[in-house]
């Protein structure tokens, strides 16, 4: 009861977060545009980021790390973080040897309905042809017949971008998971996106505050006009709430809570809403400057929105939530 939602960070997680924050600030953020143009993170950056997460097996620590790195540059995270969003599928797959060999597979998620036959966007490097397909409580591992096709996307250019045609894909495995198992798989993917969204949203807030407390209009800083101050206060509250929800859902996964997928999906919705709202304001409050690529505001605006579209997007999330909302007990008080 003293810390019911994982507010406290273990000392080693705090150390990791601090190191990641320094790296995000000193290395990732200054080079974010270069990475975007290059379509990938340099090998050295990949190595450092990959090293941060090497021995992290707890969701709670992972979301803290993801959030921190994303505040510097989220662009390459989908490519570098493996299995990343597909971690839940790897864990749920009953065929352990197949799962161990499929940590680079992307995740295609549908809520209760049939999954589409195409992964519209997936990280372009390293080359991948396999996909976990999660719909209902069914999990399949498939391999595309043809080569991935390069695509340009709304955001995350530093991860490259390909689409995978699964129409003639070879099915490597097809499993019926226990009841609720599918939502847990999709919830882990959404939790990943939610953690990145919190980082993107926080970075957007910090950058907006830095700019709007410096720039003066009508005799005082932009941020000190009450309409703007009130908006920023509400947006900061939203980011704070999203962060708490994400960490709480992560702690639920770590605790083996059967409703963790539900709460992760809820946290995803909260985080996406907060990040989209903040990143939109991040452009608006910078005025025309926010629309220019001179600032990272427009990049975060695109990233936040795209995070809300991956893994089945809001439709799949709503399918999952609507299908379980009557049955999930109160997480603190029980039934």
């Amino acid at each position, binding site marked *: *009861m*003293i*810390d*019911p*939602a994982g*507010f406290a960070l273990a000392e080693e997680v705090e150390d990791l977060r601090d190191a990641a924050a320094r790296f995000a600030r000193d290395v990732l953020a200054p080079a974010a545009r270069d990475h975007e143009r290059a379509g990938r993170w340099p090998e050295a950056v990949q190595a450092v980021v990959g090293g941060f997460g090497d021995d992290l097996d707890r969701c709670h620590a992972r979301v803290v790390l993801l959030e921190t790195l994303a505040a510097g540059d989220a662009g390459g995270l989908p490519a570098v973080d493996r299995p990343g969003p597909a971690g839940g599928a790897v864990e749920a797959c009953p065929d352990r040897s197949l799962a161990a060999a499929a940590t680079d597979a992307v995740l295609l998620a549908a809520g209760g309905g049939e999954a589409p036959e195409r992964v519209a966007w997936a990280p372009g490097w390293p080359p991948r042809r396999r996909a976990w397909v999660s719909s209902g409580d069914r999990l399949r591992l498939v391999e595309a017949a043809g080569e991935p096709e390069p695509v340009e996307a709304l955001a995350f250019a530093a991860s490259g971008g390909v689409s995978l045609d699964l129409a003639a894909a070879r099915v490597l495995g097809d499993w019926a998971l226990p009841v609720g198992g599918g939502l847990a798989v999709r919830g882990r993917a959404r939790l990943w996106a939610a953690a990145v969204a919190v980082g993107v949203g926080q970075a957007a807030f910090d950058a907006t*505050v830095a700019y*709007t*407390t410096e720039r003066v209009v009508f005799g005082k800083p932009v*941020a*000190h006009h*009450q309409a703007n*101050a*009130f908006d*920023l*206060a*509400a947006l*900061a*509250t*939203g980011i*704070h*709430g*999203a962060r*708490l*929800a994400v960490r*709480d859902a992560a*702690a*639920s996964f770590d*605790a083996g*809570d059967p409703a963790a997928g539900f*709460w992760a999906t*809820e946290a995803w*919705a*909260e985080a996406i809403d907060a990040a989209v709202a903040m990143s939109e304001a991040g452009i608006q409050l910078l005025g025309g400057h926010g629309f220019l690529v001179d600032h990272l505001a427009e990049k975060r605006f695109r990233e936040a929105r795209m995070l809300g579209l991956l893994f089945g997007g809001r439709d799949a999330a*709503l399918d999952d*939530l*609507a*299908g379980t*909302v*009557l049955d*999930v007990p*109160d*997480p*603190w*008080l*029980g039934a």
Partner: protein
Amino acid sequence: MTGLDPAGREMLDELRDLGRRYIRPMGLEADRTGDPPPADHELYRRCARQGGLVSRTVGPGEDESGGDGDASLTWRPLRALLIAEESAYWDRGVALSLPGPGLGGAALRSAATPAQRERFLAPFADQTRAHWGAMAMTEPGAGSDVARIRTRARRDGDEWVLTGQKMFCSNGARADWVVVWATVDPDLGRDGHRAFVVEQGTPGFELLRIEHKMGSRGYETASFALDDVRVPPDNLLGGEALYTARRGFKAAMATYNLTRPIHAAQGVGMGRAALDLALDLVRTDFPAQGSRRRRALERLAEMRRKLQVARLMCLHAVWLARQRTDNALEASYAKLYAPPVVYEVVSAALDIFGEAGVVRDNLIEKLYRDVKILDIGEGTQQVQRLVVARHLLGLPRDQ
């Protein structure tokens, strides 16, 4: 999220039993008549006998204590949060009417001298009858901007003399004492603030009226006149030293850092009540495959999400307080976030009921009236935005 441990579960069970047997029926009765339950109500006597709403034989033990001093008087932030949420689930008005030092107790714990704590809090150990404390800050001309209070305090020999008017004082008419905030000089702003414990029956301390409200009728909301009320020097909260160190106003604000999350948690409880009503309706009355059900389920999911985030904010703010970490920002986050989303939740539940929700014998109708006050008491949403903006944006105090 970790669920309650067995001791917490036991406490919750007792709260739920009390909710069904007393709190909800008392709230409905108060709503119907417009009058709060009488001070000698059986529930209040029970609270007095067992030292609180929940008996001391159940729930978390003394190791849960979050404060200092005499354990029987210690404020337990997390325990208080659970009690606030669950009791408000059954009826927030009645929950606010429960015996105890109330907001005045929070002020005492923030600012009082040890002798004052002993003197004014000790009566709450009395098991023979219920006792209340209260706090009076708001005035007809000073609500959110508490720095503008005009109730005057002037020295006359050793004594203080108070003159002015107070309103929106919860449980004020039945309280043994009221912590009254006054100013020695309005031109000094916050530096002029003093707080006094004014005991009931003090000459010149006169009840003007019990307000009639749209909702939350289970507790009394009192207005007072202070007509040359003479207060002994020992009743100056915190003693002179507190104000010499210019900590008077900060002490008042620290009170809110403790109470805002609790206030927000009451909102979570009210939102849960609305959610449960809507969940039950959808389960029983909405066709399994209907589009109306699907729309309702999506709304229910959003309601659950908002309530859970609000609860997390409350828990986080209180958790910080328990770590002895400054929680002013997080307390305001909770108070800023929770009331409007709880209002949204209740309103969404009302939508799910449709026209059936507007009739007086439907609890959702009462909840819709009850819930609005949440966004006003203990600092409006707009005040919270100011507080957050001052913390994060360096917004000057004069804006």
